């Protein structure tokens, strides 16, 4: 269970990017976060695995408080959080297998990593997952020889290799064509069920959010103003999420909650 309470992120002295945000995700649900650019979606995701250090508030993953962690404790916490990136962020010059195994770097020694002596169990698991997403035959190919969709599959397998307790996906389909994009969304949705894994996806494409996720969180200027099942996302709600008046939010007046029925 991921429990975010009163999360604030402020860069410098400016207006906070995240304003006392609270969010709880339980079970194997697929949750999408929508909102216009600059709403703080990406910052929210990056606060969870501490790529961005929150200013205040609490983030708890299955009982472990993540804020304030450093060094070894932080690395151990991060191992439990898989992340899929918009730009895939694969190491281009390494093979698919090495990229996939890089999800295990937090578990194996640097020496084993250097000599590419991966544990047998990890190799078997890698083949299993690659087979599942359809890239096993590429194991020895270099990552930069693959197409966009294939690269994102490698990215997903890398994250799953961590045996994560939650999967974060930051605009996972924004660099892909529509067809591949839907395949990746379907894959994330299926994997969530198969691996009993909660998945939190930042996404621009509202149609995909409706089709492939169980719950939609709408963000605007650092606040959650919508949180419900896709069926509740009316045109009016969409209007409110995407066409809000910035000044009103900036002034601190809380937007009226639209629908705040936490879906489970």
């Amino acid at each position, binding site marked *: 269970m991921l429990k975010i309470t009163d999360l604030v992120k402020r860069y410098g002295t400016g207006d906070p990017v995240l304003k006392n945000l609270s969010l709880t995700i339980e079970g194997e649900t697929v949750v999408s976060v929508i909102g216009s650019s600059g709403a703080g979606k990406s910052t929210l995701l990056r606060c969870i695995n501490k790529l961005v250090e929150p200013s205040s508030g609490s983030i708890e993953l299955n009982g472990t408080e993540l804020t304030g962690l450093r060094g070894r404790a932080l690395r151990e916490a991060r191992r439990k959080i898989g992340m899929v990136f918009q730009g895939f962020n694969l190491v281009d010059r390494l*093979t698919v297998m090495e990229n996939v195994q890089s999800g295990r770097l937090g578990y194996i020694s640097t020496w084993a990593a250097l000599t590419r002596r991966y544990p047998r169990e990890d*190799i078997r698991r890698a083949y*299993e997952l690659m*087979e599942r997403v359809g890239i096993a035959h590429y194991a020895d190919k270099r990552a930069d020889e693959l197409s966009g969709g294939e690269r994102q599959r490698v990215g997903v397998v890398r994250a799953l290799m961590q045996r994560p307790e939650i999967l974060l996906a930051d605009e996972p389909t924004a660099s892909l064509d529509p067809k591949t994009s839907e395949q990746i969304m379907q894959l994330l949705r299926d994997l969530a069920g198969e691996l009993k894994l909660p998945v939190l996806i930042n996404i621009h494409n509202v149609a995909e959010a409706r089709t492939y996720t169980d719950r939609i969180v709408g963000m605007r200027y650092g606040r959650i103003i919508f949180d419900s099942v896709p069926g509740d996302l009316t045109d009016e709600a969409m209007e409110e999420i995407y066409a809000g008046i910035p000044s009103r939010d900036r002034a601190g007046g809380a937007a009226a909650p639209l629908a705040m029925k936490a879906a489970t």
Partner: protein
Amino acid sequence: MSDQSTMPGAPLREAFPEEWHRFTPRQRMARYLGLLFAALAVGWSITSIDVIWEWVWDAPAQMGDLFGRMVPPDATNLATILKVLWETVNIATIATLFAVLVSLPVAWMAAQNTTPNRATLWLGRIILVSSRSINTIIWALLFVAIFGPGIVAGIAAIMLRSVGFVGKLLGEAIEEIDTRPVEALEATGASRAKVILYAIVPQVMPTFWAVAILRWDINLRESTVLGLVGAGGIGIILQSAIDTFKWQEAATVLLCILGLVLLGEIISAWLRRRIL
């Protein structure tokens, strides 16, 4: 083999491989051979080089001692040092100027598309190769023997070394020009000289300036050491300070050289922005 049911719903599970190697045995062999070769080269160098190993371990202490003797730098001769530093700048600048002028016809000869015939092509190339392969210091050694010690030998040495550098890069630029303007001009019946002036020169001008500035920057560095073989410039003062164990004055000279080189780099960066 019992596969943990981590993935219910996955298709019929065959045994997944538990081994993976980054390289095929053949590739691995090739890599080991490469490493072995490198290790042998280093091993051979270390074991056979004429070095007294006690001195190696002693080297850091010796270097520290040397720097210790340099502090604080002694600036009593600063006026003389700066005057000679200016002379050093002159050597570099005048030599670069002459070298650039001389390298124009050489580049023209050494470029395949402008050279009049095969003989001139090879002459041009021989000039470039011999100029480039022989170090400035070696050239200086020769010119000191001819002209006697002084900055004339220094200018000649730097110039000869620069001709190869400038000429080679310029020749390559000439070979890479867009041939269409040349053909267009030839089609109008323009003379050979006019073709060069109006179709080739404008195209290689940017490279010309870039190379000239770059070489000036390099020559500034080179001219600081000419004095060590008697060919003028700040090196003479450095040498005499070192020979007479005036380490504090040597430190001043070194700081002046550092300043000069940095200044040269700033000026050439500025020129490059202005001109290109």
